[in-house]
């Protein structure tokens, strides 16, 4: 099993390396290598999942590569196999596989075709590194590597000015979070001399007693560590206030947005917290913090999506909002629900993005939904797929999104977190609005694009390679929730990987009973009401254009500017950075230290030299005077001394 996992882990890496060395070979070879390596990984994930559930060996942890083994510390690369990891890896590899397949067609005209697959393969490897990590160091390494691949993929079009700005920003913001993660990691290593999950889990109670001093305040060690780690998760999973990199990252190719910035990488933070749930479970303060961060993100960033017009940016804000749901679930100790939403979200959001990709490529990289319109007749399959994905996203009953999202909202409400509950409720409405906005604007109405650009060949959908993944993804987007809801809620799915199962159980037993009852029950809840209102409202507003709302300019600006984050990130920080760093360099480094201290000293000595040189007048009488004066000076000195 370990060996198989290892193969699973390494096959994308091997794929990457092979691709690296066959950079100049044909496209076919590239396609072959990249897809097969991912396929192997995917099949192995499924197989392992099967093996795991059939044999049920419990979590396995094993090291396979020594990072460092000294008298002071010992660090390894390892794998940690349990249901959580395997499910996550299945999700990752499946989405990855589909996106790879999709990209063959999507990227076919690109000159850097091979490079794209190198990056994506490498990304899959890095993601799996996180998924299977059995220690914090490996987690951190994978964490940064996915950051790297995200950086590379956002900036995939190296000639595109906005893309290379966006990837720079994305990387830096992620780095902010990484500081937290790194500090947490270092703190663990320093205090407990290990980074292994199991070992830390074993001593978690004693960690909880320890204290650590941060900036003069004393904290509970475990809380401090968890908080630091969560800062990492906040950046990666785009939680307030570190969310602003994600919309910009849509500058990358759309399959990448599907794979990385919707389905997998951004959920790494969620995964990490779930993975470490035994630790987080002990830290109430941090959990509340997480809960609020999540719900604030879910609500406010959902609002921002309303004023966007770029199809991908809307979906990106929606992603942030959905991630907020997951985070909120984590904060409420509903780890398996968070994971559940993660899984369903991965599928339907990937589907949404791939659909968007289809649309974009059809419209020659036009992404403004105000210009696109009436695609329903040209792209029926995409239209359907998009519709299902949207339904799932807004949580329309029976879809996967419904199960995961509604249960999070209900559970949070059930456990009495009132304010988060209200925020999450309200954001159902916004979710409905912006989803419908895309839906209606893109597939209905009229295109404002120039005629000849619209469709050269209007009867054609995109080619089959691009449609197949849409088909495949539609299935889990719609039905997966129904199938895994019960096993998940009663704890079969994740077994003991996640903490606080009993909480879910109590919710399940007390509120849901089973998936079908939950489905029926949902029609009676306020959630559904809000959903319906939203749907009707948007139907009227976006489709029928029955009325118009004058949103106050102030609110619109606030939202467009993303509560000021936009100007902060794209205007203020670079400006300050430029001015401040230039100031430091010119004023302090060059003027003060270099010229002031160093060069002034030398010029002082030089001046002294040229001044003193004048003593050497060249006249004999001065010379003799100097000599005699020196003699007299010495004589007087002696006279006074002796």
């Amino acid at each position: 099993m370990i060996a198989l996992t290892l193969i699973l882990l390494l096959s994308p890496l091997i794929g990457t390396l092979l691709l690296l060395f066959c950079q100049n070979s044909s496209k076919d070879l590239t396609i072959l290598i990249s897809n097969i390596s991912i396929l192997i990984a995917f099949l192995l994930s499924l197989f392992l999942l099967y093996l795991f559930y059939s044999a049920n060996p419990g979590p396995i942890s094993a090291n396979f590569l020594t990072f460092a083994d000294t008298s002071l510390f010992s660090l390894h690369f390892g794998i940690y196999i349990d249901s959580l990891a395997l499910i996550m890896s299945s999700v990752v590899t499946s989405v990855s596989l589909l996106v790879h397949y999709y990209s063959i067609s999507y990227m076919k005209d690109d000159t850097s075709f091979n490079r794209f697959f190198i990056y994506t393969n490498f990304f899959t490897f890095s993601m799996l590194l996180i998924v299977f990590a059995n220690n914090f160091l490996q987690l951190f390494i994978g964490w940064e590597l996915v950051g790297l691949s995200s950086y590379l993929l956002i900036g995939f079009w190296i000639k595109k000015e906005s893309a290379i700005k966006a990837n720079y920003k994305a990387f830096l913001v992620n780095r902010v979070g990484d500081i937290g993660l790194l500090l947490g990691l270092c703190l663990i290593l320093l205090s407990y001399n290990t980074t292994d999950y199991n070992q830390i889990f074993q001593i978690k109670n004693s960690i909880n007693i320890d204290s650590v001093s941060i900036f003069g305040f004393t904290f509970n060690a475990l809380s401090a560590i968890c908080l630091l780690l969560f800062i990492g998760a906040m950046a990666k999973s785009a939680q307030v206030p570190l969310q602003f990199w994600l919309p910009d990252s849509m500058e990358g190719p759309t399959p990448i947005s599907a794979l990385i910035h919707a389905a997998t990488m951004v959920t790494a933070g969620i995964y990490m917290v779930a993975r470490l749930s035994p630790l987080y479970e002990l830290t109430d303060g941090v959990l509340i913090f997480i809960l609020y961060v999540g719900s604030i993100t879910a609500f406010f960033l959902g609002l921002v999506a309303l004023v966007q017009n770029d199809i991908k940016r809307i979906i990106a804000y929606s992603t942030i909002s959905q991630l907020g749901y997951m985070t909120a679930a984590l904060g409420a100790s509903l780890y398996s629900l968070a994971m559940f939403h993660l899984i369903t979200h991965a599928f339907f959001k990937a589907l949404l993005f791939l659909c968007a990709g289809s649309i974009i490529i059809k419209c020659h990289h036009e992404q403004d939904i105000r210009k696109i319109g009436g695609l329903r007749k040209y792209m029926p399959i995409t239209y359907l797929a998009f519709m299902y994905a949207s339904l799932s996203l807004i949580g329309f009953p029976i879809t996967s999104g419904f199960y995961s999202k509604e249960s999070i909202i209900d559970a949070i409400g059930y456990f009495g977190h009132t304010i988060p509950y209200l925020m999450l409720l309200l954001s159902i409405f916004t979710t409905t609005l912006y989803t419908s906005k895309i839906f209606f604007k893109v597939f209905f109405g009229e295109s404002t694009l120039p005629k000849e650009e619209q469709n050269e060949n209007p009867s054609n959908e995109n080619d089959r390679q691009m449609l197949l993944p849409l088909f495949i993804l539609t299935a889990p987007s719609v039905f997966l929730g129904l199938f895994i809801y019960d096993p998940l809620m009663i704890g079969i799915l994740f077994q003991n990987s996640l903490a606080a199962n009993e909480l879910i159980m109590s919710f399940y037993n007390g509120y849901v009973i089973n998936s079908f009852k939950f489905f029926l029950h949902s029609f009676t809840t306020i959630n559904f009401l809000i959903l319906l209102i939203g749907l009707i409202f948007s139907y009227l507003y976006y489709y029928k254009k029955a009325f118009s709302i004058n949103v106050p300019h102030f609110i619109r600006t606030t939202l467009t500017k993303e509560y000021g984050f936009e100007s902060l990130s794209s205007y203020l920080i670079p400006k300050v950075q430029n001015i401040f760093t230039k100031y430091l360099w010119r004023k302090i480094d060059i003027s003060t230290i270099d010229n002031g201290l160093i060069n002034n000293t030398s010029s002082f000595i030089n001046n002294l030299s040229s001044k003193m040189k004048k003593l050497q007048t060249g006249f004999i009488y001065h010379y003799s005077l100097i000599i005699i004066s020196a003699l007299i000076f010495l004589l007087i000195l002696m006279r006074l001394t002796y």
Partner: protein
Amino acid sequence: MNIELITFFIFSFLLIVTSIKVITSPNPVLSAIYLVFSFFLSAVLWLLLGAEFLSIILILVYVGAVMVLFLFVVMMLDINIAKKSAAYIKYLPVGVGVFIIFNVLIIFFFINTFENINYNAINSINVISESNTENLGYVLFTDYIVEFEIAGLILLLGILSAIVLTYRKNPNNKYQNPTEQIDVEKKDRLKIIKGLKE
């Protein structure tokens, strides 16, 4: 107040005056003459000390040879009489200051040192005879023979240097050098220059 002391005072006063004159007279010829005077006066004072040989030497060698040399040079170089410049006045206080400080230092030191020693400066030292010259000669050629030889070297060096420095061949003189004429070889007589082609 004995006769020696009176002599000493007179001559030493004159010596100081002539010395001042040496360094202040505008005309170098006058300076030289005053220097001659100084030497004469010193010779007398030395005589008073019992150094007869040295006082004679002073007059013979210095006045007779060195000062004449000085005068020759003065004549040769045709030096103008200098005017007292402003710089002179400017530096005069410094000069006087240094002069006074130095004198005070050393003179007080001498006075302090010898205030309890009432020793007559006039003293004749006898080594082998009463004659100062004989004594000096004896010491010079026995104890100080090596020094004497070295003094010879110094004089040789003086001669050599003076000649090397001042000797110059007048380039306008047209004269034949017989050595060169004899030394000429065949190849020097005819120099074949390859004709330029263009």
